[in-house]
């Protein structure tokens, strides 16, 4: 059966060039970069080149890149690290209601320890309000953590303005850029970002590797204690193959950023246009301008999302109701809730994300099948235009 993957935000396949860059590190080049002999030293210098490639994608110095086991670890490290480092200054953190669970649950963990967290509201498109942000700042505020771009509705926040506010008040600014990386031009220094989380598997790299950018001069304690790796700031034998894969993925993303954005945006727009013209009563969630290029989030009114997904799966079409890690839990999306959607619309919403391997044919096939599925599901739905709850 035909397979059409429209869930690139959940994870991406590893590109051929990326896998090729990784392979030697499992076998011939398996040395531990901390070792003093040949294969160890050459691993060490490859590690430094890899760091430079990731740094280049986000416009920083390579010594500001610390490899982690993924976006989740980077988020935990930035938030818990800042909380511990700035204990003497204060205990207040500002974030938003639409952050990824890696951020939200870390904040909740700190709340149990007595930290105070402000979760900023967002408007109906998913943007935080800069005045709200500034009003939330107290002299106990130690961290502003606002995601670069949202994983469900794709909304891109006014990062530069947030950076300026943080700087004005002398507060550290962290951003979860897991979804933005490779999809939006990022120059961390110019944007005034102090810490930024990244993950390789969202940009055609392997799962289980990511990084935290920490601006020079920002000091937070380690999350993982142990050996002297990562300039003594993140212990554990380096995941060399993963790092080399991440670096290759970053290099490709950097080289093709403009084309990638252009082609993905036009595919996504084509999909949105086709599906909304062929199915009535669909809402588009989020903003159409400041939005991740591959993302579209649709409410198929009167149709339940999980049923729709399973029918789609039966036709080989993969998409999801929200973030992958909560999709199995059937809790309504906290992001759509924050955008103000009523429960019945939340349960009818699906995120589609196109990526570098998506073709126009894939879109045509998906639209054709989804039209049939929605028709079928609506034909026996308890709800419709007239029959509301």
């Amino acid at each position, binding site marked *: 059966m035909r397979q059409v993957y429209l869930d690139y935000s959940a994870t991406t396949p590893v590109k051929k060039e990326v896998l090729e860059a990784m392979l030697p590190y499992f076998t011939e080049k398996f040395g531990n970069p901390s070792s003093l002999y040949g294969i160890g*030293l050459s691993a*060490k*210098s490859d590690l*430094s080149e890899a760091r430079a490639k990731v740094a280049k994608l986000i416009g920083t110095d390579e010594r500001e890149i610390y490899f982690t086991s993924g976006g989740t670890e980077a988020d935990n490290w930035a938030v818990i690290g800042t909380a511990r480092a700035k204990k003497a200054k204060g205990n207040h953190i500002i974030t938003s209601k639409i952050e990824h669970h890696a951020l939200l649950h870390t904040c909740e963990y700190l709340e149990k320890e007595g930290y105070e967290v402000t979760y900023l509201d967002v408007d109906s498109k998913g943007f935080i309000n800069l005045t709200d942000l500034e009003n939330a700042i107290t002299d106990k505020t130690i961290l502003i953590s606002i995601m670069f771009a949202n994983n469900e509705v794709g909304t891109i926040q006014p990062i530069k303005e947030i950076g300026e506010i943080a700087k004005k008040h002398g507060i550290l600014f962290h951003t979860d850029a897991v979804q933005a990386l490779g999809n939006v031009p990022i120059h961390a220094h110019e944007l005034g970002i102090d810490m930024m989380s990244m993950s390789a598997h969202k940009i055609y790299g392997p799962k289980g590797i990511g990084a935290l950018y920490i601006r020079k001069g920002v000091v937070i304690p380690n999350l993982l204690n142990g050996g002297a790796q990562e300039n003594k700031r993140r212990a554990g034998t380096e995941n060399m193959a993963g790092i080399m894969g991440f670096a290759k993925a970053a290099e490709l993303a950097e080289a093709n950023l403009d084309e990638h954005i252009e082609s993905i945006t036009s595919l996504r727009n084509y999909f949105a246009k086709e599906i909304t013209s062929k199915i009535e009563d669909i809402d588009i969630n989020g903003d159409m301008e400041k939005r991740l290029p591959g993302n579209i989030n649709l409410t198929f009114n009167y149709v339940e999302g999980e049923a729709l997904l399973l029918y789609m799966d039966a036709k080989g079409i993969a998409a999801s109701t929200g973030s992958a890690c909560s999709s199995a839990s059937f809790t309504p999306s906290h992001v759509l809730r924050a955008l103000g959607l009523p429960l019945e619309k939340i349960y009818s919403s699906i995120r589609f994300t196109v990526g570098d391997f998506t073709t126009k044919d894939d879109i045509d096939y998906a639209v054709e099948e989804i039209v049939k599925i929605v028709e079928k599901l609506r034909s026996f739905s308890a709800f419709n235009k007239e029959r509301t709850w």
Partner: protein
Amino acid sequence: MYCETCGSGYTNDVMDHFQNPRNSGHLVDADGEGKTGDPECGDHIVISIKVRNQRIEDIRFLVYGCAAAIATTSMTTELAKGKTLTEALNITDDDVANALGGLPENKLHCSLLGPTALKNAIQNYYDRISDFKKCLMYQD
């Protein structure tokens, strides 16, 4: 093997002197002998010299130490050989490190061992001749 960015690893000259140390060994009929050691890293050095007309005519070293300790001591003996005692006393750790094309940050301290042992050897030479002079005077 040597990384310009972080200064980690050893230069080719360091590796050469490490693998083919010049003037290694000990002079049994030395005119002066100097030792030094670094308690931190456990490295130890012995330099022995033969002196003719205020010049270092021959020089040898023994070492217990890392690659940098071996290379820098070897280089120290190269720099000192044939020099007058005054010239030899002016050899610094920087001279040695530079002559080897640099050392990693955490190995810079190794370059102090050679010049220190050399100074001690020259001092020992002076001590011996003054003892010898004292001895002659006594006989007078």
